[in-house]
């Protein structure tokens, strides 16, 4: 048992997949054999959620692994959606514009953070407001319709029954990221930098390049998700801030990414996104109103934030001591 325990605590994927499994079990209990929850429709909804927030969570999660935080993904998401719809009569050109701008904007933010020695939250907050501003300006503050309905229809097609272009894109990129983080020097450098930046620098990791690169990746992933979502909705709008940061941050944290850095892996983040997707789809299937979903997500995020609190153990010990010595 103790060996199992140590494997579980050392294996970075253990916690996220345990949580995912636990949520599936809870939904099974809530379903109580009526067969409402475990249907094809639930799988499809879960994978669609995966396609929408998965890549945003991956980019955000990687910046968190480096002890940074890319708030700008929210603005990037809507800006890229507007750009893709405006330039995307040929969808490939729209995608190229959106992801290219996302990559460039992410790299610029990374460079500002590294060169000016600034905290990432401040810089990406500025980035968020600028990107949101660009989205308002290019869309002239209205919902813009996408003129290539063929693409919108293709985005809605089912592949092999449950997948779509969006969810397959997300799955492929997640697998690639898992390989890069798990197998290559870049992955080791990311984990080392997140654990102890000074030690990583001493060991010869080029921390600055790594940070710039990860922020570029994060920007590009947020842009790709925003562009693909706008294609499939056949429209884009500049508002709707904050719709994506809550699930993305929740997924990354459920996926085992700690804000203290160093922990978390791409497949863990994938498990975190799937957890949110399963909860969302499962609650839908049971027929609870949509706000339950939001409250559940908030409650889970709050609990994980408390569990990750650096003073939690100290406070618990103080409480136990106080209880033992009634004065």
């Amino acid at each position, binding site marked *: 048992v103790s060996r199992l325990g140590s494997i579980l605590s050392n294996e970075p994927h253990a916690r996220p997949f345990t949580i995912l499994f636990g949520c599936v079990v809870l939904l099974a209990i809530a379903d109580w054999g009526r067969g409402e929850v475990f249907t094809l429709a639930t799988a499809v909804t879960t994978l669609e959620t995966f396609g929408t927030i998965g890549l945003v969570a991956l980019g955000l999660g990687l910046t968190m692994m480096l002890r940074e935080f890319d708030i700008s993904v929210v603005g990037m998401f809507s800006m890229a959606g507007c750009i893709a719809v405006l330039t995307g009569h040929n969808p490939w050109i729209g995608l190229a514009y959106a992801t290219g701008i996302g990559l460039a904007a992410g790299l610029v933010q990374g460079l500002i953070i590294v060169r000016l*020695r600034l905290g990432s939250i401040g810089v990406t907050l500025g980035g968020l407001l600028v990107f949101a501003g660009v989205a308002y300006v290019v869309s002239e503050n209205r919902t813009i319709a996408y003129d290539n309905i063929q693409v919108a229809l293709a985005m809605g097609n089912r592949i092999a029954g449950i997948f779509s272009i969006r969810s397959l894109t997300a799955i492929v990129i997640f697998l690639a990221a898992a390989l890069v983080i798990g197998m290559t020097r870049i992955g080791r450098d990311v984990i080392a930098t997140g654990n102890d930046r000074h030690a990583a620098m001493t060991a010869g990791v080029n921390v600055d390049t790594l940070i710039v690169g990860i922020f570029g990746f994060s920007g590009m992933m947020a842009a790709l998700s925003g562009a693909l979502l706008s294609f499939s909705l056949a429209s884009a709008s500049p508002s709707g801030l904050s719709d994506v940061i809550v699930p993305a*941050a*929740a997924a990354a944290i459920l996926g085992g990414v700690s804000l203290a850095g160093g922990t978390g892996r791409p497949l863990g983040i994938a498990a975190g996104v799937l957890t949110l997707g399963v909860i969302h789809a499962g609650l839908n299937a049971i027929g609870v109103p949509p706000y339950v979903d939001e409250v559940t997500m908030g409650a889970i995020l709050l609990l994980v934030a408390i569990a990750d609190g650096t003073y939690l153990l100290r406070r618990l010990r103080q409480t136990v001591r106080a209880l033992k010595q009634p004065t």
Partner: protein
Amino acid sequence: MSIGSTGSVLVPSMPRAAAAAPAAWRRPVGLVRLAVLAALAVLALTTPGFLSEPSMLALMTTVSFIGCVAVGMTLITVSGNIMSFSLGALVGATAMIFIVAVNFGGVVFGFVAALAFGALVNAAQGLVIGLVRANPIIVSIAATALITGVAEAFAEHGTIYVAAGTSYGIFRGKVAGVPIEFLVLLAAAAVGQFILVCTNFGRNIYMLGASFAAAEIVGIRTWRTVTGVYLWAGLFAAFAGVLLAMRYDAASMTYGVGYEYDAVAAVLVGGTAIKGGEGSVTRTLIGAIVIAMVQVVLLLQGFRPEWQYLIAGLIVLAMVMLQSPGVRE
């Protein structure tokens, strides 16, 4: 080193060999600020219609709502907790509580209920952040989802209206041509600045923001200070909610959308450091007025309204970049 609870994420990218930037750098930054303010003032005064009554009234009322939230946000930022994402949702929720409470028990009951609600909901977040040092960003994101979800459960996305015949007209008037809303903002700013500058609590806030470890070593009960900061921030945000509800005789969760970003923009444009430990409510007030002036000038100069967002974003980004240790120290 310790900024915010789990610290690290929130720390500037690298404590690289601190570039020995000359102390004289500090003054040019101040001069740049003064020059920008002067240029803006000249631009505003030479813009036809800027000093007209409708334009000034619009400026003062817009500033009032966001300004109240920004006063609270200043306390959070100075205390080293960066920002709270949930203040916008809190504004909407307090506006709804106010309307419900006014319909139930009258205007006075409405004030008490709304202000208490705002203060307590936010203090609960502060308690979590202060006690176990949970990450303030994540806690506020979680709180946003919780507040929005619970509000939806009660109002189902709808707008609620004040019962016919309820009268609080005196709160909607003007005193010497100044809207009551703006006077409330000035009062809130005065209270906030008094807390920061004249009380032990305020001194603790600065120390907490400058160095959490040092604050603990000198014996500050950090969790009390953090809870207090969030309590006051919630109270100030509740002012904004009540003012909005009284202005429109109604409330919905859409009222506060985006206020958290506008508020932190005002804080940063005022020059308060995002890493905590320095800054003031007065600066935030100036920041909020600057943003509103830019918006009014852009409108009067014939720009489409969406350019306001972009320009405000660029100003915030520029102000953050001016906070670089290489520029400031």
